């Protein structure tokens, strides 16, 4: 009985104010939708990663290695370490992307994988752990002539089972049939720089005999206690005899990398959702207060017949409960669809987690929190009912008691005493009026600047983040000079000869200037035991790299990446002991720079790019008029073992995993920001205009035209919008930047001091103009109908 009363009251109320309620529900739906989607994507990601880890049993520690190695040393090490549960050495053959072609006999379609920058490693299935898993979760074992291709390639090149793969060896092509696709727990993340193809033992031996592949190994270990992986890594790295020419990765790192690259989307969604919830709450507050003011007489009457204030508040709350509840349901349902779309990539790369309780529980919990929070805020605003006094409400239609009324009159009197139209010169009287109103009623209008402030922040931050990561100048966060071209030479037997070739042709090429070679040299340094320290040795003169602290290394000095400096707790001027070939030296840290490459752990030393290094990087600038892309293509052709690409493309490819997420976030928040801005402006003006009817009627009677009255409303709107947008921009450029910077530095990418590299025209000109236009659009739509109205009606209402 009582419930049905509440429900009927809520229903009537919803119908009475359709436009406003619809706008509120839309904002609430958007908020709950994003919140649910964010939480579901996170849950699925964690579930999928865990599922794949369960099936594939990745190693707890692994060390990649190119070049000669000593199998006995590995066996000795394993024997000496009882914490090892199982271990293996996986042999791999690396083939260049351009050396792998596919064709489809059914249709005659064909192509190659040359567009891919990552390493293609051919392996056989492991026996004990670190399995490659097929789409059903089984462990496939290809027969001769069959190959299993990474799912990432399946998506990227649209491959199908039954396609043929041709691998170019030194002895012609080896032809394999694509039998299926495999997921790789170790190399699943879009961050990974390599991927594995599965072939039979016979084909593997055949590929090795034919030549053209680059042999590589991974030493892999499963530990009895995976949490000791870091200690184990130290033990491994301090052993001189073990192979170490390549990346070393722990179990935990694989997990973090996976979560980070694909979890960013989820984090961005939750961030956008939080801002939207803030906007929704501001609106609710505004609408509820307006309703209470409008219905103060009814409330007074209810109080007069003895209804307790709590019951009255509940009556009003019913409506917002219904609205929020509906919004959460609708948002949740939409989120199911969106999540399925968003997680398609995750599902393919990792695994389909079996349906579980948490998959339902997590979004329901998130939505439940949204619901409770929104209702709690509504309840708080409705506490205003308690303060309404029967007499004042019924007689004066006022929410205030005598003292408040008197104080308000006092304030108003003081204000109007000071203004005088008589002494005001210049400008139209209409504009003056709009300004005075805005000054006096700023409190009512404050919703608009706040909403536009939030909308601006919402739109600007993801966009700035995206433009920063997309900027060619981002190389300064990659510890690289701002040059036009980058050539990457990975370790191979004849690497020094190749390097000589590439370097001398580049230096002799008049399309290129400022050619510099850097050698990747492995040192060891004293952490908790001896650990690997990768240094790029070369010529750093001419301030090519930006330093966060200190300056470039002189001979005999070293510069460290932020993460290395933090790891060894060193700052500029401190000494660091390094060791190579058993020979230790102490060198001075000259400076610290930001670097996201190689996990963020790098170092730089001034010197000759000596021979015998693990790899080389050559940077060059394009001479005036030369096209870096054309030059790069030219060199790639001439030197197939070298990866030569324009710097811009290098940055793009290396960071594609984050820029993809940031782009989605930027697009999403742009659409939502503008949409919400229009919506809220309309909602606000709808309520505001009903409240200003009396005043508009008076102005009209006095001889103000509808055009002028509308212009006043639009003027006030634009001004409020502009103020909010301006503050939003300033905030985003200052505190917002620091906030995002903090988030990025906590993410452990190797950036500790992020400065946005924005598209200034877009962010500081187009965005504010678009937002102001959005506000103006709302104002135009809402004021348009004033023209046809009977003005006398405004005086009656």
């Amino acid at each position, binding site marked *: 009985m009582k419930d049905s009363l509440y429900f009927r009251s809520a229903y009537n109320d919803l119908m009475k104010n359709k436009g406003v309620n619809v706008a509120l529900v839309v904002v609430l739906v958007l908020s709950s939708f994003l919140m649910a989607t964010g939480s579901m994507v996170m849950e699925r990601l964690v579930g999928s990663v865990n599922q794949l880890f369960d099936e594939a049993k990745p190693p707890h520690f692994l060390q990649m290695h190119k070049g000669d190695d000593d199998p006995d040393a590995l066996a000795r090490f394993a024997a000496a370490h009882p914490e090892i549960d199982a271990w293996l050495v996986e042999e791999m053959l690396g083939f260049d992307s351009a050396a792998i072609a596919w064709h489809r006999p059914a249709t005659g379609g064909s192509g190659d994988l040359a567009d891919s920058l990552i390493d293609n490693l051919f392996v056989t299935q492991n026996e004990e752990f670190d399995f490659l898993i097929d789409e059903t979760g089984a462990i496939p074992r290809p027969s001769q002539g069959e190959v299993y291709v990474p799912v990432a390639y399946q998506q990227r090149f649209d491959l199908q089972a039954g396609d043929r793969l041709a691998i170019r060896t030194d002895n012609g092509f080896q032809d394999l049939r694509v039998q299926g696709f495999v997921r790789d727990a170790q190399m699943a993340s879009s961050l990974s720089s390599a991927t594995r193809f599965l072939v039979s033992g016979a084909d593997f031996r055949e590929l090795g005999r034919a030549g053209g592949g680059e042999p590589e190994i991974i030493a892999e270990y499963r530990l009895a206690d995976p949490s000791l992986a870091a200690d184990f890594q130290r033990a491994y790295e301090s052993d001189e005899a073990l192979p170490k020419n390549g990346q070393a990765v722990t179990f935990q790192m694989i997990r973090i990398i996976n979560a980070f690259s694909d979890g960013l989307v989820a984090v961005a969604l939750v961030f956008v959702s939080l801002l939207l919830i803030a906007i929704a709450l501001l609106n609710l507050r505004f609408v509820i207060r307006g309703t209470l003011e409008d219905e103060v007489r009814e409330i007074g009457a209810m109080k007069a017949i003895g209804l307790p204030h709590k019951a009255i508040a509940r009556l009003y709350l019913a409506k917002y409960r219904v609205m929020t509840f509906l919004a959460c349901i609708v948002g949740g349902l939409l989120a199911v669809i969106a999540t399925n779309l968003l997680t398609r990539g995750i599902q393919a790369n990792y695994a389909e987690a079996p349906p579980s309780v948490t998959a339902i529980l997590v979004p329901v919990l998130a939505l439940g929190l949204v619901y409770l929070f929104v209702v709690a805020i509504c309840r708080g605003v409705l506490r205003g009912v308690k303060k309404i006094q029967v007499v004042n409400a019924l007689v004066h239609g006022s929410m205030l008691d005598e003292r408040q009324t008197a104080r308000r*009159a006092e304030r*108003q*009197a003081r*204000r*109007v*005493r000071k*203004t*005088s*139209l*008589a002494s005001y*010169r210049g400008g*139209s*009287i*209409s504009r003056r*009026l709009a300004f*005075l*109103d805005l*000054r*006096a*009623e700023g409190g009512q209008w404050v919703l608009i600047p706040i909403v536009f402030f939030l909308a601006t922040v919402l739109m600007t931050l993801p966009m700035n983040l995206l433009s920063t990561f997309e900027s060619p100048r981002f190389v300064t966060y990659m510890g690289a000079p701002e040059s036009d071209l980058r050539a990457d030479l990975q370790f191979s037997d004849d690497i020094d000869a190749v390097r000589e070739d590439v370097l001398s042709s580049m230096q002799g090429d008049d399309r290129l200037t400022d050619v510099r070679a850097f050698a990747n040299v492995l040192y060891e340094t004293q952490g908790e035991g001896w650990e690997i320290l990768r240094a790029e040795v070369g010529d750093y003169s001419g301030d090519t790299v930006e330093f966060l602290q200190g300056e470039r290394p002189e001979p005999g000095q070293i510069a460290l990446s932020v993460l290395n400096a933090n790891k060894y707790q060193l700052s500029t001027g401190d000494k660091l002991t390094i060791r190579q070939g058993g020979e230790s030296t102490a060198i001075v840290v000259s400076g610290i720079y930001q670097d996201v490459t190689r996990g963020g752990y790098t170092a730089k030393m001034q010197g000759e790019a000596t021979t015998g290094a693990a790899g080389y990087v050559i940077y060059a600038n394009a001479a005036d008029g030369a096209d870096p892309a054309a030059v790069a293509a030219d060199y790639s052709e001439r030197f197939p073992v070298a990866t030569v690409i324009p710097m811009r493309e290098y940055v793009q490819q290396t960071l594609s995993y984050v820029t993809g997420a940031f782009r989605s976030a930027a697009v999403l928040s742009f659409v939502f920001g503008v949409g919400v801005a229009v919506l809220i402006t309309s909602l606000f003006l709808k309520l505001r205009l009903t409240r200003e009817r*009396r*005043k508009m*009627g*008076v*102005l*009209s*009677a*006095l*001889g*103000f*035209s*509808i*055009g*002028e009255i509308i212009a006043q409303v639009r003027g006030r709107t634009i001004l409020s919008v502009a103020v909010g947008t301006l503050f939003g921009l300033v905030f985003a450029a200052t505190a917002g930047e620091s906030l995002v910077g903090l988030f990025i530095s906590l993410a452990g990418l190797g950036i500790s001091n992020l400065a946005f590299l924005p598209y200034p025209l877009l962010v500081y000109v187009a965005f504010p103009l678009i937002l102001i236009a959005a506000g103006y659009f709302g104002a135009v739509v809402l004021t348009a109908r004033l*023209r046809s109205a*009977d*003005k*006398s009606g405004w*005086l009656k209402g």
Partner: protein
Amino acid sequence: MSHDDHVTLESRDLTKTYHSTDPPTQVINGIDMSVRKGEFLVVMGASGSGKSTLLYSISGMDRPTSGNVFLEGRDLTSLSDTEMSRVRLTRMGFIFQQAYFLNNLNIRDNILLPALKAAPKERETAIARVDALLERFGIAHVGRHGITQVSGGQLQRASICRALACEPSILFADEPTGALNSSMTIEVMDALTDVHREGTTLVMVTHDPACAARADRVIYLRDGLLVDGRELGTWSEEQAMQREDALLAWLRKMGF
């Protein structure tokens, strides 16, 4: 068109239908009326008979559904909203039951507002005229007060000042004493009589026979139709009681 020099305002076959209701409400059903120059005309009728609607239709606040309104020979129904606003600003004054002042301006600024808007170039004259009005209606001392700080009578006198600020040729008043007690009513009616004596044309809607008795002529509305009118002649203090009695008798005949 025919134009009698003595007629300031004229309506021909005026109708007004509100389409916002279902079915539409036809409130004015074809009214021909004229207001002579310098006349004090009172419109009476039962509540809901369409008095306010008539007033707003002939003053250009609302657009009539059909028919024409002429002000000094000019057809108001053909004007654009901007032109009509200009007419309201410079040729018309309005007084309402409630004073309806802008609460972000003090009393004097409220009155100055139309004057400064009408003649931004002649500020000094406008200011002097408004200050003279404040003086004349005895509210100069509250000019800088906020609108909540003065009495209802003072506020309604300020309304009259505001209506006169642009020296209009015609003044419209919709129950200007409807919300006032009897002493304040007399205060305000004296002021209006004064304005009329100075030569301003006045059209007033009222329920109060005592107020109506001050008019030169009274017309009576029933269901949106003009049913009758009565000439009262020029008002004087001495004949007030007689005029009121005669008017009441007539009104009773009308079914008031």
